[in-house]
């Protein structure tokens, strides 16, 4: 009878029927005669049968759907895996992804071309009257008179206008008048700011003939605007 160790090493081949007829008979005879090896043979067969009879595991999810989704993503958007692969081998995946990319590029370029036309020229900015906006005249001149302040002294009347009789004829209504006294003491302009303009003509004409000691700033004569409220009873001058 062959040794137990040799038999046990051959049990797997004996199970598969790989032993020649002679060695197979020897193993069978040993198993009939040796209870320990027979028990081992039975437990080995039982273990293998248990494994073979184990139910197959079932996947409840859609593997094919998941695979399909992944492949669709890969074919539509070339990923890093494509970059790492030879370009020629990856062409079945790259080329289909280029088609939508090219379509998107055409659409974007078309939109850019359509939307990038030159717009209608904007209407010219109205500049009428702007030519009168020249450099501002120096302050203290007749065209840019000063107002009375701590620095600017008020012109003093040297020759008052004979307006008493005129005012008596014009009634009770007061007149609000701006008089620009020039640097030489003459009246540059007289402007009616308030009052009946239809009646104020003679009054304004009389006021233009007034003469003043000119107003001064830092000792130098300057043109000054005087604002005066003139009525039959009172003459307020100067008013600022």
């Amino acid at each position, binding site marked *: 009878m062959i040794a137990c160790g040799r038999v046990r090493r051959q049990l797997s081949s004996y199970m598969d029927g790989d032993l020649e007829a002679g060695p197979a008979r020897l193993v069978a005879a040993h198993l009939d005669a040796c209870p320990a090896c027979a028990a081992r043979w039975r*437990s080995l067969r039982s273990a293998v049968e248990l494994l073979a009879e184990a139910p197959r595991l079932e996947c409840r999810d859609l593997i094919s759907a998941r*695979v399909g989704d992944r*492949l669709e993503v890969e074919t539509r958007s070339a990923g890093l895996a494509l970059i790492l692969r030879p370009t020629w081998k990856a062409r079945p995946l790259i080329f289909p992804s280029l088609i939508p990319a090219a379509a998107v590029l055409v659409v974007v370029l078309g939109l850019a071309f359509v939307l990038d036309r030159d717009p209608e020229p904007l209407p010219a900015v109205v500049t009428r009257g702007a030519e009168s906006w020249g450099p501002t005249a120096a302050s203290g001149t007749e065209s840019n008179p000063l107002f009375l302040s701590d620095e600017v002294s008020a012109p003093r009347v040297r020759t008052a206008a004979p307006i008493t009789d005129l005012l008596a004829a014009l009634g009770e209504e007061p007149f609000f008048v701006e008089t620009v006294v020039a640097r030489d003491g003459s009246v540059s302009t007289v402007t009616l700011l308030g009052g009946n303009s239809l009646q104020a003509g003679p009054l304004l004409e009389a006021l233009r003939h007034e003469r003043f000691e000119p107003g001064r700033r830092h000792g130098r004569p300057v043109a000054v605007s005087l604002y005066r409220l003139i009525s039959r009873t009172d003459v307020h001058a100067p008013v600022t």
Partner: protein
Amino acid sequence: MAAGEFALRPAEALAGGASLEPGLVEQCRRGDAQAFARLVALHEGMVFNLAARLLGDPEEARDAAQEVFLQVYRTLGRFEGRSTLKTWIYRIVVNHCRNRQRWWRRRRKDRSFPIEALTPAEEARLAEQGPRADGPEERLERRERARAVQSALLRLSFEHRAVLLLREVEGLSCEEIAGTLSLPEGTVKSRLSRARDALRCALANGKEVR
């Protein structure tokens, strides 16, 4: 079975697909999406079952099965037809699961087991796959056996587990296993002998066997 679920398919049912392989592979190489969908449907049960047994975790197996088919799609051009498509896919499954297990081990996700064993829900589902006429005791016994087998499998080394599953569950010959694992046939036979004995010990006393 509800739509969108996969039925249990015994390994024998896949044998009929072998005659379709040459035409199917050629269609897939030409970029026929429908042909690739048929290829996936033909092998997905086998791929998932093998991955789940190797990894011991249905969730991991689902991800692994997806990656395996993506790899099949990408590398189908290199398939030379020297083996059957099925054994070629088996090789991809085993290699992918081996790499996945190494990845987990590097991150210390496990101690003695590669990945956690089957969940109680998975065990219960396995127990219900027997004949309808079985009583509660038989279903309980079947559930215990399924749990014991899976638990014993996970105590084996990955290489022993792989050779056992390919031989006893998937029904490959030693020659086919040798082609799948890129090993000499003699090495496969000796490894299979040691793996069977390791499984016997694991089932007998529950000890870890390497």
